Structure formats: C-alpha cells, structure tokens
C-alpha cells in the first residue's frame, strides 16, 4: 500500500504534461505488484469476455466449419446466414418463424410493463414520503420483505387470480405480474429519492394550495429525471431478461424472446445447428447489452441503488 500512497501523491503530475522534477521519484510502471494486479485482472477479463467471443464467432461460422471442432477459430468466411435463420426461420417445435415473434412479444411486454410499474412505484414513493398515512410504513416494510419471497411461492395463486380476471395467457397478465414484482425495488428507489429532496419545496406547494396530484406532476416529476433513468434501466433489462413469468403467464402466442430462445435451442429436433443457436442467443442478448453499454455508469448506479434495499 505504501506504493499506492506515493502513486497517489504523484498522480497529478502523471496525468498532465511533464513538469519540473519534484516530489518523490516516480515509480516505474511495471513494478512486480502492478504486474500481479494487471495479470489477475487480465485473466478474469478473459473469463468474462470468452463467452461473448465464442458466441459471436460461432454465429458467423457455417456448420461444417463448426463440426471441424475449433471453438477458438475465427470464421473463415464470416456470414450472417445463421443470424437470418435465427431471426426468421428457426424452429421452435412446430412453428418455424424464428425469434422475430418473440422479439416483438418482448417489446410488447417490456414497454407497457416498464411504464406502468415505474409510474405506480413513483406515486408510491411520493405518497410514502410526503403523504404518510397510518400503516403506510408497515405496508412498505412488508413490500420490501415480500420481495425476498421466492416467486414460486406466489405463482400458483397468481395463476388462479389472473384466470379469474380472465387475463391469464395474455399480455395484460404479464404486465400485471411485472408491475407487482417490480414494485418493491422501484418503490424503494423512488422513496429514497424523494426523501432526499428538500421538504420545503413540498411544504411551499402545500401552502400555495396544490393537491396530491398537482404537486406530484408539477413539482416532483420534473425533479426526478435521474431516478427515472435508473428505474428505466433496471426495468428494461429486468423485464427483457425475464423467463419465468413469460413462460407461466404470457401464453404460447405471446411468449417473450427468452422463452423462444430456450425453445429453439433446447427443444429443437434433429441435429442441432450451433451457429443458429448462438446467433439467436446473441440476438436475445442484444437489447440488454445495448442498454448496458449506452447507459454506462447509470447501470452501475441502478445496481447500487437496488442493492441498498432493506
């Protein structure tokens, strides 16, 4: 650590242009300690990157090339045939429409679920902070505690409830379920955010005679853009990646992309086409990956915010 101390001391000099030789003698970049640190990090990076590489490379190969048996090799003649097939004509059981219906189903599930769940959670958080009523904190505590109950415990009764509501096997059912199970974490997120806003704002609006909804839409919402972005990232990736609720509640004609992907790969008949499988896998991962790379540090912030639950 003593080395870090001196490194830290000389940090401003190394970042800018070279100045006069002052302070402690700069350490060479390749100290044994640095080599160990970087090689461990490098080794782990290989572990994390390898599947991505394999996925992409395999999807660009032809089947004879894959049967040759070198998972590392770059494709001899990269082509997107497998991608086209995965998207439009790979078979899941009897129907051979590829992943595209699943993609659109996922879009149809993700967009409304995200909007509804975030809106409800934002209102919850706002009510919990600014309009406390008897028992509101107890409900919130149960909500947070409930988020740890395994989904399997509540699954069957929820199937019965959605059947009673005549929405089982429809998009509405999946949207409802995502709203319900997204509520704990999102409510916590908004509650903590609204708690950090100055109370004076709310009080001033109250004095001016603004009511519950007016304050929410005209004061709170415009101020909560950052937390909305975090919630958005959390929900889009979470809902897109969901498998269980899609299988149970969506019904076969609305099956989201993850479900179709799993069907294409794991219940295909005949010889498996690994290039198509990997192309389908990449395609399914593309949306959350795009969200991840575009959002950058906001994604991390979302995770950190989610982690302080409880």
């Amino acid at each position, binding site marked *: *650590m*003593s080395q*870090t*101390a001196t490194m830290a001391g000389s940090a401003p000099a190394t970042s800018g242009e070279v100045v006069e030789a002052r302070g402690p003698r700069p350490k060479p970049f390749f100290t044994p300690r640095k080599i160990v*640190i970087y090689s461990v990090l490098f080794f782990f*990076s290989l572990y*994390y*990157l390898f*599947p991505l590489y*394999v*996925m992409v490379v395999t999807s660009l190969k032809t089947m004879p090339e894959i*049967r*040759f*048996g070198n*998972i590392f090799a770059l494709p001899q003649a990269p082509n997107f045939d497998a991608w086209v097939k995965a998207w439009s004509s790979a078979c899941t059981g009897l129907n051979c429409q590829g992943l595209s219906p699943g993609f659109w189903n996922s879009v149809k599930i993700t967009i409304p679920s995200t909007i509804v769940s975030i809106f409800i959670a934002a209102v*919850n958080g706002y*009510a919990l902070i*600014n309009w*406390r*009523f008897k028992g*509101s904190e107890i*409900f*919130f505590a*149960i*909500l947070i*505690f*409930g988020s*740890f109950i*395994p989904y*399997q*415990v*509540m*699954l*069957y*009764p929820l199937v019965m409830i959605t059947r009673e509501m005549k929405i089982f096997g429809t998009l509405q059912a999946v949207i409802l379920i995502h709203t319900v199970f997204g*509520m704990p974490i999102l*409510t916590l997120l908004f509650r903590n955010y609204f708690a950090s806003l100055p109370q004076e704002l709310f009080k001033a609006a109250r004095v001016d005679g603004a*009511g*519950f909804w007016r304050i929410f839409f005209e004061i709170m919402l415009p101020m909560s853009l950052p937390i909305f972005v975090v919630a958005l990232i959390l929900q889009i990736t979470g809902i*897109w*990646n969901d*498998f*269980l609720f899609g299988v149970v509640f969506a019904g076969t004609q609305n099956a989201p992309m993850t479900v179709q*992907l*799993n069907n294409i*790969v*794991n219940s295909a008949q005949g010889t498996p086409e*690994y290039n198509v499988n*990997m192309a389908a*896998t990449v395609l*399914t*991962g593309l949306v959350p990956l795009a969200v*991840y*790379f575009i959002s950058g540090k906001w*994604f*991390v912030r979302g*995770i950190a915010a989610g*982690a302080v*639950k*409880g």
Partner: protein
Amino acid sequence: MADTAAPMEAGIETVDRPGLLQRLFFHNLPAKIAALPMVATVLVVFVGCTIWTVYYSFTNSKLLPTGKFVGFDQYERLFATSRWNVSVWNLVLYGSMSLVFTLVIGFLLAVLIDQKIRFESAFRTIMLYPFALSFIVTGLVWQWIMNPTLGLQGTLRNLGWTNFSFDWIANPRMVLFAMLIAGLWHGTGFCMVLMLAGLRGVDDEVWKAARVDGIPTWRTYISIVIPMMRGVLITAIVILGSGVVRLYDLVVALTNGGPGISSEVPAKYVFNYMFSGGNIGQGLAAATMMLLTVLIIMVPWAYLEFGGKGKRT
C-alpha cells in the same frame, strides 16, 4: 425526518376531531387512493398468496386446488422423493459454493480495481456486462462452450491435448461445477460493484492511520476494512442468498436438470409439479419449503437490521 408536517395539515382542514372511521378512510384520501396498488400488492400477493400456498400445501390437491386437508402427507412424500432430496442437496452445495466464491471473487476484484489502476472503467465494464444478460443467454452460451465434442474439450483435444477433459456438463458428479462456472460468470461482476462501493465508502483517514501504524495492507483489509464493510457484506449475502434459492432459469437453459436428475433444483421441482406434473399439493409443499429456506436466511438478518430499536431506514 420522522415528522412530516403534511398529513397533519391535511387533517386540520376537516371539521373538529373527525371520528376514527372517518380519519381512517378520508383523511389524506388522494394518497390512500394512490397507494391502493401497493396495498393490494402487499395484501393480495405477498401476504394473501403466500398464506394460500402454505394452507393448500396441507391438502391432497391434484389437478385443481380443491383437495381435502391431509396434514403433513405432502411433506412426507416430498422428502421421500429422491428428486426432491437431490434438488435440496444441489441447492445446498451449489448455493454455498456460489455464495462463497461470488463473495471472494467479487471482493478480490474490487480490491484490485481499487488500487488506482489504469483502464479501471474498461475492466469494470468487462466484468459487469454478463450481469446485464439473462440467465437463459448465460446458460445457453456456457452449454455450447462446455459441449463435450465441439466445445472447449473437443477443441483442445483437436489441438493436440488428447487427454484434456472438461465434460462437467455431462458428468453427474461435476455438473454442479459447470453450473458454478456459468453462475459466477453472471454474478461476480455484480458482487464486485457492491464491494467496490463498500471499499470506496471506507474513509481515507482509516487507511492513513493504518499506514502510520505500519499495519500491512492485507492486515488492514482483513481486520479493519472488512469489518467496516459489514453493511455491504450483509446486503450482498442477503441478495445473493435469496437469488440462489430462486435459481431456475440458469438450470433450465444450461442442463435442464440433467444428466438424469443430477442438477435439479427446488424451484424447478415446484414448477414441474405445479404446471406439468399435475400434482399441485406436492408443488405447493415444495414451494413452502422454499419459503422456509428464505425465512431462515431473512429472519436473522431482519432481526439484526430492524430488531431492537424498531425501524431504521
């Protein structure tokens, strides 16, 4: 902080001292209407559905949840089923290994990243991206990599390392480790982010003081920093622990419980009995056992966190 003036003001507007019922329903009415979805979720889903499941796990429901009360029959049958016992054992083994390795690797990576290294954000990006992917994607990629004939094993054998063996996914004894490789790939980055936040939360003064006292770095980590990160560690354990109990998608995508029943997990058992086995009572009993497991993790934590002096948020 605890005293929000707003509800009181709203109360004053109504006529002198409203009755209890009136206060309960009409005081602060818009807020209560707005909170209805939350109240409904809590009462119907988290409380109602859970109680329903526990109750019906004591019935002999088959295709429909209409059976009559049979006491602990379902549980006796549950623990007499080898598939369930394998599932539980797998969960215990996989869960403890996954928890330990995720925490250790996550902490190690966070410490390394915290050494004022170059390309910090590049390393972080690389480590965290698997977490953005679904378990289905994770499972399918690793299923392909670990494919015995054309995956890593086949490749290295073709390249001349003829006795190289990496067929864990097809080997009942090793399949849990195959799951572990995929699970760690997905989750360690997340743990690293949590730990890094914890490390960065430790005051620099602490480090300076330790340095002045000549305490070696590793010692500072173990004796000072880790105890100071108690909050983050507990949070991580609770999140990872309840995630492990839920483990379902990864198994479905990676092995689908195979070879044989050697990688079955409780969540999958519940699902199969409820939705394809046509034995609801059995599925509900298994689900109740899952609930019990989570309670065993959660109750001590909740007690530590909120016990004693009421809610602390």
